[in-house]
């Protein structure tokens, strides 16, 4: 009965600027790092350390629009800013969870926009075009996968059924955007993605690389930028594994292609 299941992709999301608002797509082009433009940009402080909603929850309120050759940042009460891609410029050495990355500073106008919004010095960097960030060696396959500024892997997948199970334990239901997945799957059973090894969506074969251990960003209301305490408190009571509180599955892919809302999910 392989392939005969009722699993379908129900959401495709990208987060062009790490930790800012995401963009829902009907179809996503898959490139070497994951979905095209996912976590292509990142915010760093004056010393090049990455800044996320963990330190600055209000980043959830920065919306992002892609336009040919750049990205537009907007937030309530502020003039939107178009940031054309700078291919060359100051190279900034940074790290995402101990994994070294090189970004190109995207200029002073976005630096002052972000610094003003955040109340602290902040710059926007874009992954240097000549830099490839490998997935951590321990979790690589022989394909030597690469990734953008995501925490560690090209994709994060979560089942709607997993969220429904979590919500049945919470006093106040939470939306899927708390978990910032790239691919959401409808159908099937809660936490089915824990046990998946290899799947095919559209023309893309994906391998389960590591369950996703969750941080405080899941406690930030993505509509208000307010930080609460759930779902981590509740997840901590029943989803604790040796490496943390798990929710969702990180995936790495075998090659380029397209993944679209409505695509069946085939378990290989």
């Amino acid at each position, binding site marked *: 009965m392989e392939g005969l299941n009722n699993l379908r992709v129900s959401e495709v999301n990208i987060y062009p600027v790490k930790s800012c608002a995401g963009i829902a797509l009907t179809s996503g082009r898959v490139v070497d790092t994951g979905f095209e433009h996912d976590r292509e940009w990142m915010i760093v402080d004056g010393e090049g350390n990455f800044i996320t909603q963990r330190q600055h929850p209000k980043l959830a309120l920065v919306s992002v629009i892609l336009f040919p050759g750049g990205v537009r940042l907007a937030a309530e009460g502020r003039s939107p800013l178009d940031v054309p891609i700078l291919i060359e410029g100051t190279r900034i050495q940074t790290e995402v969870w101990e994994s070294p990355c090189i970004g190109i500073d995207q200029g002073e106008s976005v630096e002052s926009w972000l610094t003003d919004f955040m109340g602290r010095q902040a710059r926007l960097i874009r992954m240097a075009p000549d830099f490839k960030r490998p997935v951590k060696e321990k979790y690589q396959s022989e394909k030597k996968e690469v990734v953008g500024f995501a925490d560690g892997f090209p994709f994060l997948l979560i089942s709607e059924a997993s969220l429904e199970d979590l919500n049945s334990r919470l006093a106040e239901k939470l939306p899927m955007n708390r978990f910032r997945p790239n691919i959401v799957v409808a159908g099937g059973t809660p936490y089915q993605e824990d046990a998946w090894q290899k799947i095919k969506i559209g023309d893309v074969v994906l391998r389960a690389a590591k369950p996703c251990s969750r941080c405080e960003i899941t406690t930030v209301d993505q509509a208000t930028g307010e930080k609460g305490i759930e779902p981590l408190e509740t997840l901590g009571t029943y989803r604790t594994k*040796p490496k943390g509180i798990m929710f969702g599955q990180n995936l790495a892919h075998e090659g380029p292609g397209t993944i679209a809302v409505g695509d069946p999910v085939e378990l290989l």
Partner: protein
Amino acid sequence: MNPSWQKAKIVKSAPASFDIRSLVLKPESYIPYRAGQHYELRMPGSDISRKYSIASSPYEPGDSLEFGVQLIRNGVLSPQLWGLAEGSEIEIRGPLGESFVWDADASGPLVLLGAGSGITPLLSIYRAYRFKYPHGTCAFVMSAKDASRIMHYDALKDILITRFTATEERIDLGFLKDPVGALAKNPQALFYICGPDGFIDEMVDNVLELGALEANVKSEKFT
């Protein structure tokens, strides 16, 4: 039942290592906690909060809480917390955290593995364990750049097993065999690991490799 923000007074602020200050806070209303839990701390009225593990033991007399605050260069909150005089007030929310707690009934051996300021929740668990089980078997293993980076090192140096990365190799499987190997085969032994992402990833794999049961291993990412 969710804890809300409340005021807390700094009753003591003292250096506890090269880059960690010990802050002892007296909350307006003291809420019982379990070893390994944390609070969120913020400056009054600010919307920028940070998570800090409790370092004190839930069995200590009095109604205060000790935290270890590492000074983060370019940090938002830690430089402010370092600058506050005793008697100042901040806001705190907690106790929080269900995934890294030590249950007081757990009388079996205890293995604590920490890196740098990841020592704080381990200190709470160690203190609680020693209070409940003064003669219990405990291996408390710490990795740090050097001794000056370990919170309360002078008080702990006789019981800690250390690797100082400025002059020694990092903790690896071979190193752990001696202090942890035999304990890992004991199904009663509990493992608490706290440090950066990579440290947790390696140490969890190491103790599982040595035979620890998955259900007995917990970790907390220090970020």
